[in-house]
């Protein structure tokens, strides 16, 4: 046998059809745009007769849509060839840390080629390989003395508002230390680096607050690939459960976080489902406290969404009483750049 690797171009209709048929035959049948659009490259493994016998794709630091047709007597070799090629292609791009989201039954196959399991649910499992890994990520976070009451908050802060500030203040008052993790995702209007800086600036006076970039481990759960789960209802359950368990089993455990603070979610159904998953998964090791949103009188809850809308519609003065001074100054001095970004369509996330 002499299998060989070849690039697949999903924009080419015949290749896309061949690829999709191959995956469907192997139980992967979700091909929606959110999964496909983020793919950077796809490889195919072809046998002597140029038949597709394996495939895999790269999307950022995630590998996905991996499937092989096994030969008799050489069960893992094609799988290893595909993963191997993906790993070396990522290395050429300078990416040495790789995540894979897959069905639980493939855990062993990935562990066999050097992946480590981070979290799992009934529907899916998350594994990583390479450096920097979750241990190096955690080792870089400042540690607080043992025996203290420690809280954790995860926020996108797109941008940091007085609502976020109120949540952090409440946690800071009720605990000895608070870790604030800023979701690392550059699909937001405000870039990750800007959001981290604004959270730092807006909490500088609170001495027991430690602001940390969420790294690869606190991303938006909605971006967890779910190409291997057919039922849409199961997808959100899998994404939120995986996110909650990752936080509980690694982040909270290592940093001794005893309480996770959440803002109540009156507007978004999916965030509400996420909060429910956290309440189900985190206790008893980690308590969950839901803090009602801060309102601007008249039942008008402060949300980052309304701030972004005001930027878009050039009603900057309306933002002033919704965000800390530091965030306001940033918005005023970057107004045109932000509006430009909105025009270019980079505006989702909350």
């Amino acid at each position, binding site marked *: 046998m002499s299998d060989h690797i070849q690039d697949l171009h999903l924009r080419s209709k015949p290749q896309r059809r061949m690829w999709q048929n191959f995956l469907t035959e192997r139980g992967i049948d979700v091909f929606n745009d959110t999964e496909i659009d983020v793919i950077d490259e796809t490889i195919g493994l072809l046998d002597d007769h140029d038949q597709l016998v394996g495939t895999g794709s790269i999307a950022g630091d995630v590998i996905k849509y991996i499937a092989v047709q096994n030969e008799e007597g050489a069960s893992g*070799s094609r799988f290893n*060839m595909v993963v191997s090629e993906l790993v070396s292609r990522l290395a050429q791009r300078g990416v040495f840390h790789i995540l894979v989201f897959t069905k639980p039954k493939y855990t062993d196959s990935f562990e066999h080629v*050097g992946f480590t399991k981070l979290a799992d649910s009934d529907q899916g499992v998350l594994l990583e390989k390479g*450096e920097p890994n979750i241990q190096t990520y955690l080792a870089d976070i400042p540690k607080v003395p043992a025996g203290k009451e420690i809280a954790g908050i995860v926020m996108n802060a797109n941008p940091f508002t007085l609502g976020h500030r109120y949540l952090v203040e409440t946690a800071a008052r009720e605990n000895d230390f608070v870790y604030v993790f800023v979701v690392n995702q550059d699909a937001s209007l405000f870039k990750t680096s800007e959001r981290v800086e604004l959270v730092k600036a807006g909490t500088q006076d609170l001495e027991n607050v430690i602001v940390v970039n969420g790294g690869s481990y606190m991303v938006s759960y909605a971006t967890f690939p779910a190409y291997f789960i057919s039922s849409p209802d199961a997808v959100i359950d899998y994404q939120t459960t995986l996110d909650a368990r990752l936080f509980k089993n690694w982040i909270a455990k290592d940093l001794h976080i005893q309480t996770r603070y959440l803002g109540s979610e009156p507007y978004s159904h999916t965030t509400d489902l996420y909060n429910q998953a956290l309440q189900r998964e985190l206790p008893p090791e980690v308590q969950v406290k839901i803090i009602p949103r801060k309102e601007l009188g008249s039942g008008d809850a402060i949300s980052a969404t309304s701030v972004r809308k005001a930027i878009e519609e050039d009603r900057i003065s309306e933002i002033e009483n919704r965000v800390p001074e530091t965030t306001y100054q940033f918005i005023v001095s970057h107004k045109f750049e932000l509006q430009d970004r909105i025009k270019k369509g980079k505006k989702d996330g909350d």
Partner: protein
Amino acid sequence: MEIKKTAIAGTLESSDVQIMLSQGTDGIQFDLESDVEKQYGKAIKATVADVLKAYGVENANVKIVDKGALDMVIKARAIAATQRALDIVDEPMWEVL
């Protein structure tokens, strides 16, 4: 010598080994995945450690995924990964080879 950047060499295919080197602070730390770890784990680590020593690398995190590679294959992959990690791919150290 200090590791300048994370580097990788080798594949996950049968009879090969994939070695990844990254910066470390606490001597040479190994993380080995191999079906024959029980029988050959020590020998595999020793081969890689010898290469690192020859290059004067004192601190590194070494991740090895072995797929039944022979000793000279391990050595070759270790040399490639080290040259890449030290950013001296264009100036092979002949005395090591």
